[in-house]
């Protein structure tokens, strides 16, 4: 919700509300063309960019897309594959062939068991929402240490900042390794002091992530940490 910075220029809409005429404009995400109007389908802020009218929703569920970096929690294990909860409507499937280890048939559980956390990428999503994950790639691995936390999908961009500037700053001041995945999950690893700081930051994101003064609050928190 980067648009929240602009304050009064923004227009909050609810489902069914007409945003503008459909002629000459294209309907983007969160909108629908009905008759001669573009209408909102979600509660959110209107965003008009390059002739595309869309609605940035205030709250939305994670819908996996191919290429997304996700943090998954193993929910069940078969002889040759794992099912992981990726915070979406359907579990992701990680086949043995896309795991980073040489796995014997029937030995999947020795590498990752129920409740283990993985950093994976969405390899493929088909029309029926079947999600295939891969752990073949740079940095993709089982996450053995650190903490995992959830934030709203719409706050991801606010935690990252423009060109990941905010995230870099947070990594620097907390001295932690931080991964912000596309599915609204955040992984933090470092010393306990850094993790405590990051917990405060994530709490701020959850509670105030949509507010116009979020960046100022975060800046104050970072400054406080620097001066400590």
């Amino acid at each position, binding site marked *: 919700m980067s648009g929240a910075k602009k304050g009064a220029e923004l227009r909050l809409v609810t489902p069914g509300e007409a945003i503008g005429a459909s002629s000459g404009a294209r309907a983007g995400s969160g909108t629908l063309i009905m008759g001669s109007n573009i209408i909102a389908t979600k509660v959110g802020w209107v965003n008009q960019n390059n002739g595309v009218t869309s609605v940035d929703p205030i709250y939305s569920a994670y819908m996996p897309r191919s290429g997304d970096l996700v943090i998954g929690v193993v929910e069940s294990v078969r002889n040759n594959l794992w099912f992981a909860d990726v915070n979406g409507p*359907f*579990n992701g499937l990680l086949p043995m062939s896309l795991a980073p280890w040489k796995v014997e048939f029937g030995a999947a559980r020795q590498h990752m068991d129920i409740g283990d956390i993985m950093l994976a990428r969405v390899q493929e999503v088909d029309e029926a929402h079947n999600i295939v994950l891969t752990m073949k790639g740079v940095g993709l691995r089982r996450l053995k240490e650190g903490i995992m936390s959830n934030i709203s999908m719409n706050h991801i961009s606010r935690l990252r900042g423009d060109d990941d500037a905010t995230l870099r700053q947070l990594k620097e001041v907390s001295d932690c390794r931080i991964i912000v995945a596309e599915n609204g999950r955040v992984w933090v690893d470092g010393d306990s002091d850094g993790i405590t700081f990051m917990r405060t930051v994530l709490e701020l994101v959850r509670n105030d992530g949509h507010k116009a003064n979020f960046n100022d609050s975060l800046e104050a928190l970072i400054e406080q940490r620097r001066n400590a």
Partner: protein
Amino acid sequence: MGGYGDVQLLRDDGLRLDGRKVDEMREVKVEAGVLPAADGSAWVKHGLNVAVCAVYGPMEAHPRKIQRQDRAVIDVRYNMAPFSTSDRIRPGFNRRSREISKVTAEALESVVLVERYPRSKIRVEIEILAAEAGTRCVGITAAAVALADAGIPMRDLIVGVASGKIEDTVVLDLDKAEDNYGQADLPMGILPTTGEIAFLQMDGDLSVDEYNTCMEYNMKAAKEIHEIMVDALKRRYIEKNGGES
């Protein structure tokens, strides 16, 4: 609902027993996002009716036999709390709650863009905490706000509203006495921006003219309730934002 001749529901001055005019609605209050554990939620007070609705999902539809390959299914559970009426209600599902759950789900399916979420399920839990006639309408209104709060794409909000006939007079928004002793009841689910009807039931007899008057009253009330619903959804974020939108 055959009418009870000995019960006076209209006063001599033409007003109803609670002092409302024939085309006057009970007071409606709506709050969005009242339950932190749900993906979306709403609280609606309509007269003395109080409903809370929680929405979860979209999630994988279980059991698998209920999955639809081309769209999501909406699983509605309407329930009246045992303490919601003057006589205690035996907890759990009964024929009436099953029927209302079914018709509510069908009404909601016409506004939710279910084709966006194949094979999934959207769970809608409606709990009536206090009942004073018209709970199915209050449930629909609460469900619409909760669905919007959960970020489920919809082509419109849906408003539940009812009117009926008492002492041969068409009135808007029946209260308990009017519902029990009146002649007819016409609850509707209306899409306020287009005026489409997603749900309609009729209990009792109405002439064509009476039906048209009921429609007129319901449409007018739906627009009023819609404004309150929109205000609740917007207020949630504007208030949190310290007055900024």
